[in-house]
């Protein structure tokens, strides 16, 4: 609407003997502004607060800096984040000791917080101490990189900072590039601490104290955030500042409306559209649609391996051969993404140690029936299949097809649609026999996936698989420095996984970023949000 409004203004201005002032000026401001709408909303300015949304992560990436950040690479012609290239953000350079137990960071001399004070190693120390000490989200994440205790962090001098590791851990450095270990202006934050709240969690939730590319202008939780450019920030690629002078982030819950907004040009970029809208916008060809399979994510159908009848491996295999993958993929995602089934593995061995990996399964009802018979259920059984309300758009058609297809081998399925909170509770309590979910790994390495999602009695082990061999290989692989050995471990893990079939992988959905033709620089990020600092207008 804004655009049409401006056009009208222009028309009117032209008719009124070329009064020029208002129109062009406004148009220029609009060009330097990025407007972005999402379904969910920003609920905190500190990404560490439990319950933070992905939208909140995206904001924190622009308002705060971290020590390091990921580079980017091209995958099938699209820009994606690169786990293997880590470059300094607040750090000018870093150095890993030969034994892999020490990482030393040299901070930028010119880095300043938004209040003008310089960024020092003390600030870094306080920030990382907070990340591993306070009861916040960062703690669990940094654990995966062996960062667990404040004693591991040391400020050598104002511009030198050192991290000590108990064991060489290849995920230590990448962890510092994730969302949580933001570097906070410790002096400012400390002035807002209280006895019960020594880490200023309450204050930082509604305020920023960072050195990031954007300065907070206004924040209405659940509605909108406005940011303006920090002109002093020079930590973009090539030492540049961010392109857009102003960012407007709004929450628009109705997905069809989001599609309308971007199509009408009122919004510059949208990522979480429905597959059908993305497809139709792509077909219309007026906008740029960048569709990246989320290669660090996966959607699957999970079975509770401890609960009859899914405790029988043949039942799980029967399910794997009884699903109409192609139809499900088409109906649910309109084919937008990467199927994880239908592969052929030469001599039945996994072709690689990477994960997620395409499985050699496809719809084969005879085979499914045979497995079912072998499991002792020749006539099938009854079960309940659950998915959460928030995922209805894709899960519902998928579930309908699943029900229909399993009916053909005698398995009667009752579909249960659960509000998100109920679904997560029941998953944690391991009460769901059969359901669909999705996972994402920020640091997508094979051992990371297996350790977090296939071992232990914990929430993320959706299938509750308890396989000693898989567990021990995954633990070993974590600290395996040798790339060849690591690959071999990966192949072994993939083989066990296929054999046991704890859950049936379905696909990696695409991240469809739909944007105005003028927008450039979009990169798919590990946190599955837009990093505003990447974008510019042509």
């Amino acid at each position, binding site marked *: 609407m804004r655009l049409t409004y401006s056009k009208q203004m222009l028309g009117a201005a032209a008719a009124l003997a070329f009064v020029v002032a208002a129109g062009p000026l406004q148009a220029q401001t609009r060009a330097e502004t990025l407007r972005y709408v999402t379904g969910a909303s920003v609920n905190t300015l500190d990404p560490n607060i439990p319950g933070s949304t992905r939208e909140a992560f995206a904001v924190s990436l622009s308002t705060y800096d971290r020590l390091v950040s990921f580079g980017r690479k091209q995958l099938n012609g699209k820009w994606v984040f690169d786990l293997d290239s880590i470059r300094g953000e607040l750090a000018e350079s870093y150095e890993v000791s030969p034994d892999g137990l020490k990482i030393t960071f040299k901070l930028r001399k010119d880095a300043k917080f938004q209040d003008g004070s310089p960024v020092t190693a003390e600030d870094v120390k306080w920030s990382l101490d907070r990340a591993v000490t306070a009861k916040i989200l960062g703690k669990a994440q940094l654990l995966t990189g062996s960062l667990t205790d404040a004693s591991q962090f040391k400020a050598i001098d104002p511009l030198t900072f050192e991290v000590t590791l108990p064991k060489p851990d290849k995920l230590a450095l990448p962890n510092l590039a994730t969302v949580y270990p933001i570097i906070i202006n410790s002096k400012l934050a400390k002035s807002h601490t209280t006895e019960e709240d020594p880490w200023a969690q309450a204050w930082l939730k509604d305020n920023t104290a960072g050195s990031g590319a954007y300065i907070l202008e206004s924040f209405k939780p659940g509605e909108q955030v406005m940011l303006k450019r920090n002109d002093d920030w020079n930590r973009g690629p090539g030492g540049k500042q961010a392109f857009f002078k102003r960012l407007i982030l709004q929450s628009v819950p109705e997905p069809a409306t989001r*599609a309308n907004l971007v199509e009408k040009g009122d919004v510059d970029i949208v990522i979480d559209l429905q597959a059908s809208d993305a497809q*139709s916008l792509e077909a219309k060809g007026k906008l740029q649609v960048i569709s990246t399979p989320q290669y660090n994510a996966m959607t699957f159908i999970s079975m509770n391996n401890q609960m009859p009848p899914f405790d029988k491996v043949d039942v799980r295999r029967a399910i794997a051969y009884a699903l109409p993958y192609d139809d499900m993929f*088409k109906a649910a995602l309109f084919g937008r993404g990467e199927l994880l089934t239908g592969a052929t593995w030469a001599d039945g061995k996994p072709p690689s140690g990477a994960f997620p990996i395409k499985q050699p399964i496809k719809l084969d009802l005879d085979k499914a029936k045979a497995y079912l018979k072998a499991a002792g259920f020749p006539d099938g059984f009854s079960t309940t299949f659950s998915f959460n309300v928030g995922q209805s758009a894709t899960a519902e058609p998928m579930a309908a097809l699943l029900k229909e297809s399993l009916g053909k081998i005698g398995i009667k399925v009752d*579909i249960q649609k659960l509000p998100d909170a109920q679904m997560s509770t029941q998953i944690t309590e391991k009460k769901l026999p059969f359901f669909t979910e999705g996972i994402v790994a920020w640091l997508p390495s094979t051992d990371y996936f297996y350790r977090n999602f296939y071992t232990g009695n914990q929430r993320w082990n959706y299938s509750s698989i308890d396989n000693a061999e898989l567990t021990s290989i995954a633990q070993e692989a974590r600290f395996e420095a040798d790339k060849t050995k690591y690959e071999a471990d990966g192949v072994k893990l993939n083989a066990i996984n296929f054999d046991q079939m704890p859950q049936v992988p379905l696909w990696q959905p695409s991240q469809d970023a739909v944007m105005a033709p003028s927008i450039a620089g979009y990169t798919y990020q590990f946190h599955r949000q837009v990093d505003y600092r990447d974008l510019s207008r042509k």
Partner: protein
Amino acid sequence: MSSATLQHAAFILRGNPITAVAAAGSTLLILVGLFAPWLAPYDPIASDVANALQAPSAAHWAGTDQLGRDVFSRIIVATQLDLTIALSAVGISFVLGAVIGALCGYTGGRLDRSVGRFVDVLMAFPLFVLAMAMVAALGNRVENIVIATAIINLPFYIRFARAEVNVRRNLGWVEAARASGESHVSVVLRFLLPNVLPAMVVQMSLNLGWAIINAAGLSFIGLGVKPPTPEWGIMVAEGARFISTGKWWLVAFPGLALMLAVLCFNLLGDGLRDILDPRQRT
């Protein structure tokens, strides 16, 4: 129904063609609901992904949906479920409300006051949110949707029955029934209630439409019946996602069915009110 009432009804219908059409429409709906499985040309839940999202054609009068299911068949079969939900929800609140309300209206006193308090509490709730909360708490099964809809409707029926009984409790024929040896309870149930029912039936008919809309609203926010069961509200809610992509038939046809059903019930209720309203009798 006495012959005079029928005669009066005929008189009203003649002067009120809309009501006649609405009555015919409602009857048709109920018939469709009863014979849905035989009327539907296709299996309403059989998918055919190869033919997904086809525009209306001779083979598929109302097109096909995301899974290639025949929308027309789904609409027909959904009639059954939607009418069941609406009728049973309204029926429950009607029966409970009539009995409780009538007892309160007749006896007054402590019962009336405590029920009145309960009704006040229910009325003070934001009703749709209460329905949502109940469905969320009890699980989104058809029974629970019915129960939630019934409960949020209950206060209106209680109040209505209470008021209607209250104005009649001191009429001669009520006292005459007492003098003829009826107990209070049987006076309420056998004498007062039957006389209050016609007016409440009007209320019920108006309410049916509302119950359908309410169920559709619950579906829209994801608290409707389970997939793949066809239900108008869910079909509309799902179809709404396709409005901007030009797949208009997904929302248009179920929406039309829902609208027509609600419209029929509302107009019928309106008409019934005219038939029963003594002020309109000459």
